[in-house]
Every structure is written in C-alpha cells, then in structure tokens.
C-alpha cells in the first residue's frame, strides 16, 4: 500500500472540498470494499477523506412534493436500515435486498452511500496480474475471452462486461429512489436509475458523479406500490455470496389487472437494470405467468451471451415470474 494521507472533516462541505481539490483523493465510508482494494492495490489514492462519522446517520420520514418519503442518511449502516420498522412494513424489497447482501458483520459496517458506490466483483478487476479496462483504461478486458460465468448480458460493451454488485441498488431502482448528492456547486438530486452508467468506452467510470460529489442521503418514496414489493436473489450458496441474478419487484393489482408494476434486475448489467420494457408490457393487462415470462423475454431481447453465461437469461426471467406471482398471491390473500 502506498503512503496515505488521512483527513476526517467535520461536515460534508469540507469533505467535498477536500476531495475536489486533490487530484487523487477518495472518500472512505464503511471501508468494506475500499480497504480491501487498498490492500490488493486495485486502487491507490494519496488522500482518504473519512466520511463515516459525518452526521448523515439518521432515518426520517418527511413529506415530499409527491408524498411521504423516507430520507436515509448516507452514513446509515446497512443493518440499521434493513431493521428499520418503516422500511420493513412499507418498502420490504429494500429491507430484503439489504438482508441478502454480505454478512451480518459487514452490514454493521457498510453504509448506505458506500453500498451504492462499491465496485464490481469481476474477478479480473481485483486481479492485478490480468488486464482490466475498468482498473486501467486501455489495458484490455480479460473477462471477454476468459472466465465469463458472471459477465453482463445486457448493456455491456466491447471494453467491459462487468456487473454491478449491489443488492440495495437494485431494490432502490425498483422503488424509484432518489440520491441526494453534494458537489462543489451545491446539492442536487439524481434518480437512482441515473446514478450508475453503462460501460461504453469508459468502464473506469461506474457512476455519473463528478470528482468531489458526495452522496449525503437517499430518498425512498413511501408509496402504496412499494408496500407490495420483494427481492429475490439467486446465488452459488445459500448465504454470503454475490448475486448470480437478482430481481426486485413491486406490484399493484386491481383485481387481476396490473395497475402498476416495477421490475429491476441485478447481476445482469453494469448498473441496476430497470426493466421498463417489461413493466410497460404488463401494465393494464392480467397478471399471468405466461405474460410475465413474455414481458421478461421482451426486456431480454437484446441480451448478448456466451455459452458461459447464457443461463442468466432464463434464470432472471424465471426469477421475475417467481417474484411477481408471489406478490400477486400475497395481494389475493
């Protein structure tokens, strides 16, 4: 690990200024991903700006212009958010997604903001002996020709086939969450679905954030739709593993007719994949297994796979059927 300066500012504005003013500075939050990367040499900042202790650590309900919103401070720990009574009753998909991630110890450490900004677990990104465009722009992508079981099937590029690892981000994408960001020019609000980006020819950039931008909170709308929501995650072992594929869904039924629906996928793309094409196909019609399968297939029409990861397509389709039929059964109970 190279020499490292450390700063613990008292407020968010000072933290933003410290990172913006330095050519090679990074924010440190829970550290569950970044500290590992420092050890591995995946990243080598000269200055760490510690935002773990900033006072963005509460969860409050407030009235937004479009209804009640749960405002979650960026420093709130994953375990505290998952256990929050209002989240469990009003937005279960987000609680379930958090509980499906990492281990209890890590959830006590990891923060809301940090979870969203964690880096891919593509094996080549973490392996310094192999080229990776995300780690070193222009170096080449080892996953294209190499071990490709975890590779993205939607929205990948010739430069990068990595997937985003966060469970939380997938659930937040499904429930129309908004990320509040403080930058050098002040505060702005970014829909969660626009926080992460597709790799294109700049896979080194995971998000649309600029240098010095600090996530200060996440707003989760407390809608009727989100009340009936859940998260399903397929993985290689029962616990403590990243998603092979995952599905967050929310469903509002009028009898058997889909009044409104949300679907987001994880393990599929470089960002949480909001399946708007599938949602549009389902709205206004009856909720049947057949229609969910067709809607998911429409969303997956552009999927590009190899023989190593082709199984992801039927797996995410079937998981989507599982999620929405379970929510429909719950609605009819």
């Amino acid at each position: 690990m190279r020499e490292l300066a450390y700063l613990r500012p008292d407020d968010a504005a000072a933290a933003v200024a410290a990172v913006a003013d330095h050519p090679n500075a990074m924010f440190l939050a829970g550290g569950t991903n970044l500290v590992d990367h420092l050890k591995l040499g995946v990243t080598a900042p000269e200055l760490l700006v510690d935002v773990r202790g900033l006072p963005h650590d509460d969860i409050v309900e407030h009235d937004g212009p479009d209804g009640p919103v749960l405002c979650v401070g960026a420093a709130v720990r994953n375990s505290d958010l998952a256990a929050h009574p209002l989240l469990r009753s009003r937005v279960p998909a987000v609680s379930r997604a958090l509980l499906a991630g990492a281990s209890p110890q890590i959830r006590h450490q990891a923060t809301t903001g940090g979870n969203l900004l964690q880096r891919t677990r593509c094996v080549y990104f973490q392996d310094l002996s192999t080229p990776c465009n995300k780690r070193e722009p222009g170096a080449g992508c080892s996953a294209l020709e190499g071990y490709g079981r975890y590779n993205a099937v939607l929205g990948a590029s010739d430069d990068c086939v990595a997937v985003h690892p966060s469970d939380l981000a997938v659930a937040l994408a499904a429930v129309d969450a908004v990320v509040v960001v403080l930058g050098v020019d002040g505060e702005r609000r970014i829909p969660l679905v626009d926080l992460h980006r597709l790799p294109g020819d700049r896979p080194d950039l995971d998000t649309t954030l600029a240098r010095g931008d600090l996530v200060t909170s996440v707003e989760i709308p407390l809608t009727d739709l989100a009340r009936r929501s859940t998260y399903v995650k397929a993985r290689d072992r029962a616990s403590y593993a990243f998603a092979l594929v995952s599905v967050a869904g929310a469903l509002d039924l009028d009898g058997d007719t889909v009044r409104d629906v949300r679907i987001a996928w994880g393990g599929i793309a470089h960002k949480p994949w909001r399946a708007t094409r599938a949602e549009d196909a389902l709205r206004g019609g009856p909720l049947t297994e057949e229609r969910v399968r067709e809607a998911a297939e429409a969303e997956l029409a552009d999927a590009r796979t190899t023989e190593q990861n082709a199984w992801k397509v039927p797996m995410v389709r079937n998981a989507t059927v599982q999620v929405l039929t379970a929510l429909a059964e719950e609605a009819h109970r």
Partner: protein
Amino acid sequence: MIKLTIDGTEREVSVDTRTTLLDALRERLDVTSPKKGCDHGQCGSCTVLLDGRRHLTCLALAVSYDGSDIVTADGLAGAGDGAEGDDLHPVQEAFLAHDGYQCGYCTPGQVCSAVGMLDELKEGHPSHVTEDLEGSPEPTDEELRERMSGNLCRCGAYVGILDAVREAAGEVTA
C-alpha cells in the same frame, strides 16, 4: 495517536494511516484474540464487538476507529450476567459443552459473532430467512445458520457450533 478501549482497558497507540484495526490490535497492542484468517472480510475470524456490535477488524483502518470501544472474545470472560473475574461467558461455555470447534482458530470470531447475533435477535432484527419481516424472529436452526453465515470454520465444526449457539439462544430468549 489513537485511543481505544479494549476489553475494558483504555489503550493508546500511534499507527500508520494504512494500519488495519486487526494489525493494530495484534501487532501493536498484543491483543491476539481476534485472528487473522483471510484478511479480506470473507471469513469472520477477526470479528470483535465494536461499540456493542459484531464487526470485522481486517476491513477497518485503525485511524478511522479512534475512540472506539472494543470487546474481544478474551474480554467476554467475566462479562456474562452475574459473572466475576475469569468466569466464562455463557456463549463460551456453550462452545465448550458442544465442541463448537476443532482447531479453535475461528473460535474467538465465532464467539463474538454469536454474542452480537443474540443481541440482534433479542432486538427483533430480521434476517434473510425471516418470513414475516414485521414479526419477531425465532431462533430456529435456519435463522441461526443464516445469522452465523459470516463466520467460516475450515474444520467444519458447524454442527457443534449450531448446537452451542442454539443452547445460548435458548438461555437468552427464555
């Protein structure tokens, strides 16, 4: 210079910014109860109770934890209800009674994790396998296994660990 309260004793140590909490404890302060297993947050053997919650020390920079209160498995002795001095914590007793280990390397982490886990259960925190998110989770085997899944045991003493944790859970929730 950072200050840490470790097993009830206040300690001061000067650390490089790159030093992890685990290395500060083991190499600088001679607190060797937390073990270095994978050193990448994958095994749980470095688990301590930090400000009352189970926490990894390998994925934590010591400078960031100035002022923290740390309890290691070593410090749990004498910490049970009505315990004195070297009396083992009920969770430690349960691990002994049920052979919750073979080589013992992961045990301090397992024990700290189990103590933290039982507190979470008492507070009604849900887990991945909790069916009713709004209900009070019960210490079923399925719940205990999921809640202990952050601690690996390469000897595979999971059957004994589960027996130990089940007994301790019975005492806590009874």
